[in-house]
């Protein structure tokens, strides 16, 4: 069975895929149509309860803005940040890890110490630091989260490379006279990809949580641009009066993160050969 078929057959991964696809659809729709203008303030409609008749089915926030429209608009931002931050962290982390694992010796030591240093920094604190230095805008959130991810990817890819390096087929390739970069790209990388893919899907989910935690602390995406985190942040003040301002953006976060987690867990089942045949 190839990976794709197994993916579809794995109910957990499939559930994740469905949720993520649903969000992709919502995002595409949000580019063309939203129930209301997500930025439009309306003093008469402050903190309206969710109701079908008014059309505000998730209710309105403290500025009378439609929460459903803002959640929809925010999904694009959240997904984009999560994907780009993971991409950034994965690219640099994997390069570092491969470099360290493949070269070994002193380089390995230096690179892994750098990863250790980043690792022993509390991650949210590190992200807060970077945000405070760079200033609050979307690109910087991506950078901040990406940097937090680098050591994790570096460790995983280094581990995978080291495990494989001692494998027989590498030795065979070497004795056949293959060069280092040839071995690296044709043998090592494809074979170490499984743990990295799993890590990527988990990172996608954690990025959404990190972004919303940063926004919650006022260091993430800046109003009036809606993001799930900053919606929760401003809801904190009014949630006792209007619980729906906190409930719906939170649910949006939970579902998308769950989607990535389901996918990641399913992938782990599929890609981890030790578990594949467990009955």
């Amino acid at each position, binding site marked *: 069975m190839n990976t794709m078929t197994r993916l579809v057959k794995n109910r957990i991964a499939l559930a994740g895929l469905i949720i993520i696809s649903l969000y992709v659809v919502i995002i595409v729709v949000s580019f063309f149509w939203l129930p209301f203008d997500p930025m439009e303030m309306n003093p008469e409609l402050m903190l309206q309860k969710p109701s079908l008749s008014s059309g505000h089915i998730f209710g309105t926030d403290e500025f009378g803005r439609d929460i459903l429209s803002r959640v929809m608009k925010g999904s694009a931002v959240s997904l984009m940040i999560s994907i780009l931050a993971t991409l950034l962290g994965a690219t640099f982390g994997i390069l570092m890890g491969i470099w360290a694992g493949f070269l070994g010796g002193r380089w390995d030591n230096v690179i892994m110490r750098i990863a250790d*240093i980043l690792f*022993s920094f509390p991650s949210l604190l590190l992200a807060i*630091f970077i945000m405070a230095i760079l200033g609050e805008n979307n690109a910087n959130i991506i950078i901040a989260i990406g940097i937090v991810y680098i050591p994790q990817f570096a460790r995983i890819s280094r581990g995978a490379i080291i495990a494989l390096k001692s494998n027989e087929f590498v030795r065979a390739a070497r004795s056949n006279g293959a060069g280092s970069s040839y071995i690296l790209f044709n043998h090592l990388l494809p074979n170490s990809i499984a743990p990295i893919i799993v890590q990527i899907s988990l990172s996608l989910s954690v990025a959404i949580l990190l972004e*919303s935690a940063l926004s919650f*602390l006022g260091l993430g995406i800046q109003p009036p641009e809606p993001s799930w985190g900053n919606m929760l942040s401003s809801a*904190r003040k009014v949630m006792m009066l209007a619980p729906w301002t*906190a409930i719906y953006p939170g649910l949006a976060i939970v579902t998308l993160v769950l989607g990535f987690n389901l996918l990641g867990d399913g992938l782990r089942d599929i890609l981890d050969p030790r578990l594949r045949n*467990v009955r």
Partner: protein
Amino acid sequence: MLRFIVRRLLTLIPVLLGVSLIVFFLVRLIPGTALEMYMGTQVEATPEMMEELEKLFGEDKPVPVLYLEWMQDILKGDFGYSLRTGRPVLPDILSRLPLSLELTLFSLILALLIGIPLGIASSLRQNTFGDFLMRILGLLGLSLPQFWLAALMVMAFSGFNGWIPMGNYVGFLEAPLRNIKMLFFPSLAIGIGFAAVVMRYTRTSMLEVFQMDYIRTAKAKGLKRKSVIYTHALKNGILPVITVTGFNAGYLLSGAIVIEEVFALPGMGRLSLYAIYQRDYPIIQAVVMIVATIFVLVNLVTDIVYALADPRIRLSD
């Protein structure tokens, strides 16, 4: 074994040195100074007054010089004085440590209490509907943003008098009941996500153990299922759970910044958050150094425990 520990301890030195360098220079890269925060926006400050204060704050020297002085002081165990309150940094941090330790401990206990039984149950019913449901629940627990969960708890329970006592943290030894009441919901908010992690590890590791030859042998020998679980599988399957617990304990100790913020708990997380907001350099530096040290030490201990428990793992780094 001893050589292994010594070697690992030696590698900690460059790591901690690196952390100290980064934190020291990074905090000073953040726009705004402690002095400016101190003055705020309501005071008519003259330049001479600012100079006077700068001297008072001890921030009137070049940064590299300040760094060297700080390193010297740290080695003597002196973490300096808060730029905001003027109090010595170390006692202030140590007074937060019990709360952070307790919060960590409580959430770990909750997580293990929830996670391990669910993980075992799930592994025993692999690929049944029950397993499927428990795994999805586990993943759901992992997907809940801590601060949202915390906010929902405050929303739901603060209506009941005394369910979530607010303010005036008291130590466990002082008033155990009030202490536990204060920390129950915060620990739960942190613990739920972590329980999901524990559950996943337990399940995977149990499944792996079931595959091992000796379990098969034990089964073949006609041992009852439950005795197999207890005497063999659980003992071996729990190992990776220890590792992940230790690893996360290090993380949790750094303080659950957002949880402490929502529940108004005076722990390390809130201390460091406010120190960043106020550019209180000595506090930020000390918190990061202490947390990093605890973190690497906990990791080291976990590695050692793991190595001791599993002779198959050769001690290498």
